[in-house]
């Protein structure tokens, strides 16, 4: 503080610490309320729009019915109900319904990289297996051999123990230290429906869907996870990721989406007719999902009804489940909108009450300085100087209060966001809302200060 007039304000501020503290607290509460409420409201609006625009909520999901989660259904009935197996052929349903734009299969998939850890684990298990078989033999020879320990029936998949050293040395082979990666088995229209595109390499060719060689496309963050430090992810194209499930040749890398797609990989779906029976069994137990994307969301319900008819016709009642995720999304959105609107209005009320109070407190502070104003004007201060002096006092008070308010609002907002299951960081929104509310309070405080605009120094000095 280099100006004498500023020193007057500062020292008055410090001398009246309780009052000044209350003033800052009032600002903090008003800003805190509005920053949290405003940020939440905007956040909910943004997420609603994003959610409804997302391809995942513009499609009908068809899956085999699993009653495993339904406690009312007896166990025998559950097994009975899993007769239907959905395959690529069932995507034909789309041909009969013009509103369907794309149809594809989306199955969960997992791959397990081979690395030092997994090799060590495997060595340990095979030692156990040998020991088990040896002890089995040693006991009764007449009895059928016992079962090896559970989970080891299929062995370890790809066995690379002998070539490990040369594989490690190879530039062409990627060895990942992760335990596993998640991804999807997809059919070709998946990429069109989700509007995913490659930043390097290419999408699957038609033959990739029928060949037996393993090929994968990587999401952006998974690619970054696999790429050598400091190198572009483009260098991964054509290389092979070593997994228990085999060598996975990387053919493409997707553009980043900022969505869950980024962390995953994608492999072509192959009907059991084209590939080994083993995958067919796996797919059945994993419950294939068909997706039918509809460009006109108004038609989702009617498409769902048509698909339901088609699949009942195909497999009978209660075999497949036809669901419309958008309905649930809309319910969630309606609930979140209601809550956030209420909170927003309450926070607005809080801000308004705080603004009026702050303006009133600032007014009484300035009115007590009427004599100061008179003397300052006698000594050469213009009305502009005086207005600026009080405005800067307001600014400092509001700035301090707003920082405190934002600090209150950030954890509040995170709490609320978690409660409403919203994604993404809303902290920038909190800061923007805090700035907006600070501006609103400042505007309120500027109304009373204008009262000095027409006062004569002689009148001001006469007061006490």
């Amino acid at each position: 503080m280099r100006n004498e007039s500023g020193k007057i304000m500062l020292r008055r501020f410090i001398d009246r610490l309780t009052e000044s503290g209350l003033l800052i607290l009032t600002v903090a509460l008003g800003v805190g309320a509005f920053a949290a409420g405003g940020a939440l409201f905007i956040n909910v609006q943004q997420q609603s729009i994003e959610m409804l625009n997302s391809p995942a909520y513009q499609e009908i999901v068809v899956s085999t019915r699993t009653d495993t989660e339904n406690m009312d259904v007896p166990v025998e009935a559950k097994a009975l109900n899993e007769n239907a197996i959905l395959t690529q052929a069932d995507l034909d349903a789309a041909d009969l319904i013009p509103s369907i734009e794309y149809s594809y299969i989306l199955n969960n998939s997992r791959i397990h990289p081979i690395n030092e850890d997994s090799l060590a684990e495997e060595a340990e298990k095979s030692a156990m297996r040998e020991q088990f078989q040896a002890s089995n033999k040693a006991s009764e020879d007449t009895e059928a051999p016992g079962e090896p320990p559970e989970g080891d029936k299929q062995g370890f998949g790809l066995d690379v123990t002998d070539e490990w050293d040369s594989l490690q040395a190879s530039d062409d082979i990627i060895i990942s230290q992760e335990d596993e990666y998640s991804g999807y088995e997809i059919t070709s229209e998946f990429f069109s429906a989700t509007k995913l595109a490659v930043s390097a390499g290419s999408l699957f060719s038609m033959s990739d869907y029928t060949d037996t060689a393993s090929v994968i496309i990587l999401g952006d963050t998974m690619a970054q996870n696999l790429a050598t430090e400091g190198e572009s992810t483009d260098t991964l194209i054509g290389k092979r990721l070593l997994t228990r499930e085999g060598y996975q040749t990387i053919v493409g890398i997707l553009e980043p989406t900022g969505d869950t797609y980024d962390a995953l990989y994608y492999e072509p779906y192959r009907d059991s007719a084209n590939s080994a029976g083993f995958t067919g069994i796996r797919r059945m137990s994993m419950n294939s999902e068909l997706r039918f994307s509809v460009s006109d969301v108004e038609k989702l319900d009617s498409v769902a009804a048509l698909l339901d008819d088609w699949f009942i016709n195909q497999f009978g009642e209660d075999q497949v489940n036809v669901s419309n995720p958008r309905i649930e999304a809309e319910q969630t959105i309606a609930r979140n909108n209601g809550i956030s609107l209420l909170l927003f209005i309450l926070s607005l009320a809080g801000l308004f009450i705080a603004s009026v109070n702050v303006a009133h407190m600032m007014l009484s502070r300035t009115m007590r300085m009427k004599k100061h104003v008179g003397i300052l004007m006698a000594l050469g201060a213009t009305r502009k100087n005086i207005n600026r002096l009080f405005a800067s006092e307001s600014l400092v008070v509001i700035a301090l209060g707003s920082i405190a308010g934002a600090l209150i609002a950030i954890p509040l907002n995170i709490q609320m966001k978690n409660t409403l299951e919203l994604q993404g960081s809303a902290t920038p929104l909190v800061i923007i809302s805090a700035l907006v509310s600070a501006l609103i309070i400042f505007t309120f405080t500027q109304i009373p200060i204008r009262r000095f605009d027409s006062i004569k120094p002689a009148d001001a000095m006469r007061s006490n």
Partner: protein
Amino acid sequence: MIQLENISKIYDLQEVKITALDNVSFNIDRGEYIAIMGPSGSGKSTMMQILGILDNATNGVYKLEGYDITTLPDKEQARIRNKHFGFIFQSFNLFPELSAVENVMLPMQYAGVPVKKRKERAIYLLNEVGLDHRMNHLPTMLSGGEQQRVAIARALSNEPDLILADEPTGNLPTEKGDEIMDILEKVNNNGVTIVMVTHNPNQGKRAKRIINLRDGRLESSITATGAAYAK
């Protein structure tokens, strides 16, 4: 330097109108030392406020160096008060939050003087009025006489042409009042014009001209020797 022509000031208090000044005309020359005298309520303070552009006259013309200043915008009036006038009040009117030095520095802030120069000059002026040992004291820690000397130093900070002092010794014991009078006389000897309101005839006599007001009218304007002032 200043011409006042038919200055009237009427305070409009809804029920009554008080005529504080009634058609007062006189001139002030550069370097003069004028005492304004008159009974309580005769309009002396009102006169000083109009002279200092702290208030507007209801009627009449106020010319400073030939320019009518009553219609000047706020910014220009503030600049004149800041650079050309120095005020001394009966109740000192120092800022209680600021030390003696800072009180003296304040008018220079509005004149755009850099902080270092402000401080230098404030210290110099406080030395001049004999307060070298009270620089960093707050007004509450100073005696009345000391406070008024700080006020004089503050009035002199921007080297004014005119000092307006409304009963500068009114709140002080006689001997302290005389010290203030000595300082003002010294300031006048350096060429600064002084207009001072006083009740004290002895102080009045020290001025070079006495203007007597009665009921808002100019009763007489006489030189120190008692001769009528012609002009």
